């Protein structure tokens, strides 16, 4: 199926409140889904006989922000955090990219992580990928069975792939800068 057909099929099932946008001109066509519905959409994407997206190739978080004030004027995106799901179907041999846009901080309070429902019950590999996105990008996956840091140590502070992340000055007696 082409990205347009996948988009149509999602629109038919969920409507415009859930399928909030799409971009077919991008190198990898993507469809945007409302954060609250991502788990149900994921279940549909995997189960629907026309779609059958049985493989989650990649799940990653992206922090859209330009911390440099001079460059920020030219920055082409609105500041936000996105969770990107790269899906592939071994059965139907097609691929699609699903995106979820979140605020950078929940309720705009710095330090409160944005929340999105987990998809680890749909694709088992999402368990680890979500742990990594939580660890590095700082996205809270609601309903995840074991959302702990995976690459950084447990007591690490902050989320290093955030654009405004500051390297800690000191960690257990080791100087950072």
């Amino acid at each position, binding site marked *: 199926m082409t990205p347009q057909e996948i988009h149509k099929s999602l629109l038919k099932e969920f409507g415009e409140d859930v399928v909030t946008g799409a971009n077919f001109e991008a190198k*990898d066509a993507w469809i945007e889904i409302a954060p609250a519905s991502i788990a149900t959409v994921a279940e549909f994407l995997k189960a629907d006989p026309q779609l059958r997206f049985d493989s989650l*190739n990649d799940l*990653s978080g992206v922090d859209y922000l330009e911390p440099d004030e001079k*460059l920020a004027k030219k920055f082409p995106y609105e500041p936000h955090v996105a969770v990107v799901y790269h899906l592939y179907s071994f059965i139907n041999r097609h691929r699609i*990219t699903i995106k979820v846009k979140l605020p950078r901080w929940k309720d705009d309070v710095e330090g409160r992580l944005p929340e999105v429902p987990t998809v680890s019950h749909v694709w088992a590999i999402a368990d*680890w990928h979500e742990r990594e996105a939580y660890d590095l990008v700082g996205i809270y996956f609601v309903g995840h069975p074991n959302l702990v840091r995976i690459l950084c140590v447990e007591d690490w502070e902050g989320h290093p792939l955030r654009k405004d992340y500051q390297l800690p000055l000191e960690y257990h007696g080791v100087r950072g800068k």
Partner: protein
Amino acid sequence: MGLKNRGSNVSCLVKNLSHIEFESASEVSRNMATQLEDQRIIEFDVRTDEMLVNMGPQHPSTHGVLRLLLKTDGEIVHEVTPHIGYLHRCAEKIGENLTGPQWIPYTDRMDYLAAMNMNLGQALAFEKLLGIEVCEKAMNVRLIIAELGRIASHLVGMGAYGLDLGSFTPFLYAFREREVILDLFEEVCGARLTYSYVTIGGVTHDLPKQIQMPDGLAALTGKPQGMVMTWSDAVLLFLEWLEKRIKEYHTLLTRNSIFIKRTAALGVLPAEMAIDYGCTGPVLRGSGVDFDLRRDGESIYTRMYEGYKFDVPVAPFSNRKDIPKEVILGDNWCRFFVRMLEVVESIGLVRQGLAKYPTAEGTHREPFKMSTKLPVDEAYLETECPRGQMGFYIVGDGQAEPMRARAKSSCFCNLSVTGPLCEGILLADIPAIVGSLDIVMGEIDR
């Protein structure tokens, strides 16, 4: 094993003995005999405590700094929790602060056993984002290099797996062969492990014309040292020699009955589970899923392999008659055997590539400026690396440095299946299963 439990066992035996005292001598001997014969009675009585065992991060058979936390009950492992991150070097954060060509040396250090394939994946992802198409010659050189890299990587995978299972010889043979490939790579780009050879727009240098035959190759083939020959002749000489050695590996490992006992019907990974856990590469094909990105991938990658003949080995290897009968689809042995067959396919691919090299048109490298601005767009591309599908996800924001440079690791996904795969197996089988996944920690932790 707690002392208390042992005590209860002994008291149980004592009780039995005191009971026996009142019986006649013949009966006693008969009772003793039955007690000794039927081992199960004793085994059922041995109660053990659950014990937490740390395997790694320095254990030699964990392929780097992997820590497995095992919950064991005697010899049985109930739960395996992998702990990773000991080799985390912030490769993605570094990538966000460097331009594409500057980031390539960092991809070398991801899967350091197949650095050429990592370079290729990264370069192709940037080319996809920028809409660059490299010319025929660059593709040809890339294919030769990538497939040689695959052979070198699978040789280590095979040797290290033998080492995991306690056989030292194949490891030494594998390293002897790999050494020659490294020598040949050194002639191409000057580096032996971290090449940074494949770059955006092509490869950094053309293949060398005349070289002195590497000493290692001369010693192996019995040719005089210091012979001057073309690089492709040296590769062909090596491949011819390597092809004959593969039979030896099969004798040493594949059809070795101890090896079969330790790998066949163990760590069985069904196809659905493999897909669910995002397993790719030989792990996925070992479970019977016929999928290889060199054939089924995106056109920017498969273009390289157009006009080349190669098979994709997939378990249960229905066209082969020499599969041991103990083997089950998706077990350790299948994963291992897929790699062995891939080496043969790669040898064929390198030969075809070298045959096409003299007539390949174009230049080996299109000029690419370091300061080229990336478009406001994003591209995700997976390539078939020796260990699975390595993906690069690049988001551009109009500057030369990508806004997000993500490296999706194939070993990361392959390792995530260890937990469910190792439930309820014997402790000694853990290295056999983890080794069959052929992981490299540099790629998992990035």
